[in-house]
């Protein structure tokens, strides 16, 4: 509640308040509910949970797609079973990670300031209308004093956000949009208080308040969209609760990864991702290194082999001796490369700030010129100052302040509904300027597992293949087992022998059956299967393309984007995928720093690169590229390095995201145009001294509302 404490009424009894909001459940279990979408879902989930004995309360949050449950003595498994029983996917969320996004203090603080400014604006506007319609003398002075009484404290409270931001910019000798805003608000208030004190005619309290109100609206919109994306991204991280199974004196215990030290023994069962670097101490298995190196082919490991953090154990159970933890792991060492790459991108200046850098000095010089001009034509100092300040108030970038956030909110909201989390405020602006797209292969364009074309094989041959593949520990055989349809029952084999480097051989119904290298089996291609004296059957193994990958590449090429494929995998594998996607521009066996260099070379040639990747080997490239997208299946490190996270499994929305980003950029520029157009009309009037508070109020509201309406067209 700390941010709300700015309001004195709210600090009074935080405890009483907590007791009053009984429906809010503090410190309960939080489950993620990715598939809920309607009222019926809310009802079903809450009913299912309340039916579990021991559950005291359950409240679904549809915006965040999660449920908070107060059930101190019920095991989480029971709660998950209840929700799954009702037909919804669910996973437990790490409370400490999501708690921060649940109590959105900053958002509440902005909303509070927005509300105060809004109510003050309405009231002051009423008095202003009375003055404009002809209140005179004592009545006018009374109304001015009341307006001052409302406006000054409101401005001090509500416009604080702009003052702080402007001050932090001025302190380092820079100008941002908040500098002219703050200046206009302060000068308008000061001039009006002065006019009120001397019983003058023209006060700008309503202008200062409506300015604050409209700008806070922009800030709130901006904050809310980014908060939604941030909380969803945090949720992804919270899903990967890092725990490891430590073996100590033969006993197994589940510990947090941070507690491990080099020399510990940990168990890594099939399907688990290695949390730390280690050496295989017992067991044998195959590891999926695709997230680290981009290789799609699994690698066998036996006693003494090195396993790096981030690799996934595919088959057998392993015991690892921990060699490096935390900052020393392979995963973390990549961070240095990422940091260096990020530095290069941080030089991007947001469109709004670029506009401010031109706009702010221009209006300040204009006001100064107006003041000097009026002195030169023989005016007194007081009226000249008055006119100069009115120029500043009229030209205050109210519409400019709304131009970017309103459009970005509409665009980000649209993308959010289509499964894109836009994490970075300027990501869409940058995405719109991209002209080259670089894809990673494994895990991005492909799903990271293989498919086997089985159409031409007899069921009998398939059953033999299944049995032989199962008998072998070779990574390719493992891949085949995973790719074969589960309905195929393996036959019984006799005399299974594995010939290292060649393949596996066995006897079946008195015939010799072989699976392995083409030359050994008797076929032109590897791998192949031979049954008895029959002709050898070459097996076609291909990586499964991610849904929508082919269409996306085609559409991007049709839109005249340069499309490249850069992978850490073997040339054959990369070429196969590139050919299927119709890509001629591909590069294989690229190391992480080579990927970065390719991007740097392209940028030097004047291109702007969008990097789409998921692996650790892409992380530096993601951070370096002009804009970057990673799928939700990517490593946490990659998602952190990229601007946008793609939640849906299909890639086909990517083109739409680029289109939306372009449309958003067009609207932003249109909005700048609208704001500039208003100023072109208003500035001459103000410079010549004809500006009135009524004119200022009309110009400001009209331009702000036009800009907001224009922004909504992005949807």
């Amino acid at each position, binding site marked *: 509640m700390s941010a*709300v404490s700015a*309001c004195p*009424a*709210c600090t009074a009894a935080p405890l009483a*308040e907590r007791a*009053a*909001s*009984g*429906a*809010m459940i503090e410190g309960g279990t939080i489950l993620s509910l990715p598939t809920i979408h*309607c*009222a*019926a879902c*809310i*009802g079903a989930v*809450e*009913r299912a949970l309340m039916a579990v004995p021991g559950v005291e309360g359950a409240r*679904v*949050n*549809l*915006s*965040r797609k999660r449920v908070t449950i107060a059930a101190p003595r019920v095991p989480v498994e029971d709660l998950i079973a209840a929700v799954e029983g009702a037909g919804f996917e669910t996973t437990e969320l790490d409370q400490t990670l999501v708690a921060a996004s*649940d109590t*959105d203090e900053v*958002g*509440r603080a902005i*909303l*509070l300031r927005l*509300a*105060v400014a809004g*109510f003050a604006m*309405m*009231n002051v506007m*009423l008095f202003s209308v009375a003055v404009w319609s002809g209140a005179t003398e004592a*009545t006018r002075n*009374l109304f001015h004093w*009341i307006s001052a009484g409302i406006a000054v404290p409101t401005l001090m409270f509500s416009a604080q956000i702009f003052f702080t931001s402007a001050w932090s910019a001025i302190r380092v000798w820079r100008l941002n949009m908040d500098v002219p805003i703050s200046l206009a608000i302060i000068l308008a208030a000061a001039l009006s208080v002065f006019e009120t004190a001397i019983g003058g005619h023209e006060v700008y309290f309503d202008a200062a308040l409506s300015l604050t109100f409209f700008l806070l609206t922009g800030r709130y919109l901006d904050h809310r969209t980014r908060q939604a994306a941030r909380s969803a991204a945090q949720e992804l991280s919270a899903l990967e609760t890092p725990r490891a199974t430590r073996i100590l004196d033969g006993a197994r215990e589940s510990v947090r990864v941070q507690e491990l030290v080099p020399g510990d023994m940990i168990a890594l069962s099939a399907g688990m991702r290695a949390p730390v670097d280690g050496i295989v101490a017992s067991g044998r298995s195959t590891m999926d290194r695709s997230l680290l190196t981009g290789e799609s082919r699994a690698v066998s490991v036996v006693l003494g082999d090195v396993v790096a953090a981030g690799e996934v154990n595919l088959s057998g159970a392993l015991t690892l001796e921990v060699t490096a933890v935390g900052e020393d792991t392979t995963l973390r060492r990549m961070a240095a490369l990422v940091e260096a790459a990020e530095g290069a991108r941080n030089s991007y200046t947001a469109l709004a700030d670029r506009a401010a850098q031109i706009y702010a000095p221009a209006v300040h010089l204009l006001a100064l010129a107006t003041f000097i001009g009026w002195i030169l034509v023989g005016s007194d100092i007081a009226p000249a100052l008055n006119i100069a300040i009115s120029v500043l108030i009229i030209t205050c970038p109210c519409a400019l302040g709304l131009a970017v956030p309103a459009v970005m909110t509409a665009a980000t909201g649209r993308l959010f509904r289509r499964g894109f989390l836009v994490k970075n405020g300027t990501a869409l602006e940058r995405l719109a300027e991209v002209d080259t797209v670089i894809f990673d292969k494994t895990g991005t364009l492909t799903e990271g597992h293989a498919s086997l074309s089985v159409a031409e094989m007899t069921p009998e041959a398939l059953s033999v293949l299944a049995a032989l593949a199962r008998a072998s520990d070779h990574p390719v055989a493992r891949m085949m087992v995973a790719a074969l349809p589960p309905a195929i029952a393996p036959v019984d084999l006799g005399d299974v022998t594995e010939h290292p480097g060649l393949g596996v051989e066995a006897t079946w119904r008195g015939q010799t059956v072989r699976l392995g290298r083409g030359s050994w089996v008797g076929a032109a291609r590897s791998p192949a299967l031979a049954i008895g004296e029959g002709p050898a059957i070459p097996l076609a193994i291909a990586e499964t393309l991610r849904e929508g990958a082919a269409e996306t590449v085609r559409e991007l090429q049709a839109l005249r984007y340069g499309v490249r494929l850069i992978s850490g995998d073997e040339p054959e594998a990369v070429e196969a995928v590139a050919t299927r996607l119709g890509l001629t521009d591909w590069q294989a066996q690229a190391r992480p720093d080579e990927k970065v260099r390719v991007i740097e070379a392209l940028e030097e040639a004047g291109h702007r690169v969008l990097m789409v990747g998921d692996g650790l080997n892409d992380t530096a490239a993601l951070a370096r590229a002009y804009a970057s997208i990673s799928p939700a299946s990517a490593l946490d490190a990659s998602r952190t390095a990229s601007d946008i996270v793609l939640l849906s499994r299909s890639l086909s929305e990517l083109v739409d995201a680029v289109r939306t980003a372009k449309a958003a950029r067009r609207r932003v520029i249109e909005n700048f145009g609208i704001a500039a157009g208003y100023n072109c009309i208003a500035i001459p009037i103000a410079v010549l001294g004809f500006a009135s508070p009524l004119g200022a109020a009309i110009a400001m509201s009209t331009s702000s509302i036009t800009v907001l309406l224009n922004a909504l067209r992005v949807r």
Partner: protein
Amino acid sequence: MNVLLILVPVSLVLASLGLLAFLWSLKHRQYEDLEGDAARILLEEDDTPRS
């Protein structure tokens, strides 16, 4: 113009009532799940307001 003595305080009081109502709704976390609250009106059993 004596009517102002009544009307001005009345307008101020009405506006502060509106502001207080908003502060109350903010304090009771009515802006945390806008989509959910919009959907809840369709639920038959859940017609109790949030706290």
